[in-house]
């Protein structure tokens, strides 16, 4: 039974299109939002005999080059990269291996949201005894917070996805709209744009892309979860602030001022390229995904800060991002920790990770704040420097706590929000359904749930 489902999961993962990684969202598990490749195990060729052998499970593009670089500069360690699927496909295997007590890798790529799920089953090794604290000052604060629990650090932060308002400047200036600074202004601009051109929309709203929805809620200050280990968890999709958020987006959908197609689908790219969608509320890694799919609007795209709740607030959200964790059961925790820390916390690693081949956006502050990153230009954005916006918002990302059942939450989210995309359900209704589904799941799992 497990082998069949594993094969199916690998097959689904292997079909992930390079346009954003959501392709492995079967009606089930959502995948990482960083792009995914589908290669099988790759053996590093630059290993010296007698070196400590390590296995590293990772899916994001460009990782083989980083691993090769590590093996070259650390001849006493030999790391082998294995692609066991993207996101949930890999977490399923990891959880099964931990359960069985065999077959676990030494290091694994784990997104921030999945860390509590692995911590609760005691699946990760605390990196503090292996010198992790030395890297704290080199990592952007919100990312460090998400890999820590109490005084322990369970993973090395890797890339992050700070969000911005990425807009088509020629389209917005055609209708005399400047990037809105508040959500109220955003709603007004959306109405104005749609009135001036009924075939165009200010942005797209796809809640089936649930990780994106969570990032927006983080930015709006209405993040629905609270969890700091143990048996108590707070789930709140139906509080007044959350419902206000839901009603806000529903009002835009009901008025027809906002588009609702599936993110990363062929129609979605077409809409961005043909002036149907004037912007995409996206993350720092998104332009790399957009570039191969757009041609007509190349050079027109600019980044600006996302609208805020009020003119004086300055909160950001982060969509996606991965960390590098040492898995319990490793025979060589010291070397595994050294690899994980080098991977997320060295310029040598980030030089490759931030190159166009890998396209990751660093949580590593020496690169994040460097002028080489902030002054970088891409053809999609013409002569503007979008990383200046992405980099500065990274410092303002709100700290949040993920609950230990995100796989279930994301699976459920795809089902629950499908009605919104289809137009058969309102966002508030979906939030209610989501709340009851998550609460009953958490209670069934033995948690004490506050709402």
């Amino acid at each position, binding site marked *: 039974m497990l082998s069949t489902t594993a094969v199916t999961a690998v097959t689904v993962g292997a079909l992930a299109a390079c346009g954003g990684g959501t392709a*492995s969202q*079967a009606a089930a598990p959502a995948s990482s939002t960083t792009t995914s490749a589908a290669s099988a195990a790759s053996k590093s060729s630059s290993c010296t005999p007698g070196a400590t052998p390590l296995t590293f499970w990772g899916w994001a593009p460009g990782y083989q080059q980083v691993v090769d670089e590590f093996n070259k500069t650390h001849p006493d360690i030999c790391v082998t990269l294995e692609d066991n699927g993207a996101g949930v496909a890999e977490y399923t295997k990891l959880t099964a291996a931990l359960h069985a007590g065999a077959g676990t890798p030494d290091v694994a790529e784990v997104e921030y949201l999945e860390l509590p799920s692995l911590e609760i089953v005691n699946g990760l090794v605390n990196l503090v005894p292996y010198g992790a604290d030395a890297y704290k000052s080199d990592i952007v604060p919100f990312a460090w917070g998400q890999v820590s629990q109490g005084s322990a650090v369970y993973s090395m932060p890797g890339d992050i996805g700070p969000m911005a308002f990425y807009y088509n400047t020629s389209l917005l200036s055609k209708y005399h709209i400047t990037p809105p600074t508040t959500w109220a202004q955003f709603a007004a601009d959306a109405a104005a744009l749609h009135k001036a051109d009924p075939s165009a929309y200010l942005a797209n709203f796809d809640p089936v892309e649930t990780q994106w929805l969570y990032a927006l809620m983080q930015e709006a200050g209405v993040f629905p979860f609270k969890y700091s280990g143990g048996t108590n968890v707070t789930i709140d999709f139906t509080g007044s602030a959350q419902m206000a958020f839901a009603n806000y987006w529903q009002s835009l959908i009901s008025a027809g001022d906002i588009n609702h197609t599936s993110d990363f689908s062929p129609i979605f790219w077409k809409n961005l390229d043909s002036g149907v969608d004037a912007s995409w509320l996206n993350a720092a890694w998104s332009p790399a995904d957009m570039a191969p799919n757009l041609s007509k609007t190349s050079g027109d795209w600019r980044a600006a800060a996302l609208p805020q709740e009020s003119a004086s607030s300055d909160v950001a959200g982060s969509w996606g991002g991965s960390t590098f964790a040492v898995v319990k059961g490793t025979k060589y925790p010291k070397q595994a920790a050294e690899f994980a820390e080098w991977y997320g916390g060295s310029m040598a690693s980030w030089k490759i990770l931030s190159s166009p081949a890998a396209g990751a956006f660093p949580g590593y502050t020496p690169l994040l704040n460097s002028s080489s990153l902030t002054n970088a230009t891409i053809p999609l954005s013409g002569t503007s420097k979008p990383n200046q916006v992405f980099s500065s918002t990274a410092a303002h990302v709100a700290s949040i706590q993920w609950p230990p*059942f995100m796989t279930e939450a994301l699976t459920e989210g795809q089902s629950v929000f499908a009605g919104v995309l289809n137009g058969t359900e309102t966002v508030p209704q979906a939030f209610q359904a989501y709340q009851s589904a998550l609460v009953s799941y958490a209670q069934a799992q033995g948690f004490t749930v506050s709402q």
Partner: protein
Amino acid sequence: MAGVTAPPSRPMLGGFLTRATGTGPGTGSRWARLAGDHRGLLFVAPFILFFLAFMLAPVGYAIYTSLFTSKLIGGTRFSWFANYSQVLTSGEFWAGVERVLVFWVIQVPVTLALAFFFAVIFDLGLAKLGRFFRLVFFLPFAVPAVVASVMWSFLLVPDFGPYARLAAALGFRGTNYFSPGLILPTVIVIVVWEFTGYNMIILYTALKAVPKDVLYAAAIDGAPLWKVILKVKLPMIRPAVVMLIFLNTIGALQLFTEPMILATFQPQAISFGFTPTIFVYNTSIGNGEYNLGAAAAVVLGLVIFAISVGSRAFFRRKREAA
């Protein structure tokens, strides 16, 4: 029959063995007879082992797993039939069962009717280049279901795909083949496309085996062609048709691959429990609730078993009545 003759059911090899050991037929030593009787078992042993290990053992394990409940807080506990009552009262699960039954009732007759129609045409030799077209019709079956689903996902892309444009040209602007109203017909079309060729080849072979003298007799009696086809040929290939109904039914009730792959491209089109097998997959893998998924799988297995046994009894009774 008096005399010392070997029992008619003794396999030839067993007889050889007794002759080789020098004992006479019918009076063979106990050893020889045991060895002879169990020769057959040796031949089926590989399959039996495979069947036990990969078919029965997993079913047993699933039943065992379904009697427990695992919680993140509190570990695994024996919970009798708690999972079963959760599955049996799950609206999501039964919606999937209903959907798959509707799928079955439409897909199987359509596939078999089309397959029979084309098999008859080829059998009558009406088509030029019959062999070539038989191969072409069979090709969809040679395409793996995953590949076929990916291909159809691109063909049916709303607004920009060729079929959406065709619909618009015919006056049905804005056709979304993945909308809640059209998703099931879309899946039916894909599965019919995949399996008609396979069913057709089987029926064609069965038609070719119909004895010619029966057909000559019908021709001499002056029966019109449609009567020959429906009242003479079809009843004579009944065993093949019944077998195909069986195979198609089991496949239809286990529908999984095509909607799962469609969901990769159109996640909002396929719900958590779109089909019972997808419900089992999402519960087990998506939610990590393996115990609940095992219970759902057992319930699904029982439903399919009931339908299979029921239809076999139905056909047997029909045959006896005929």
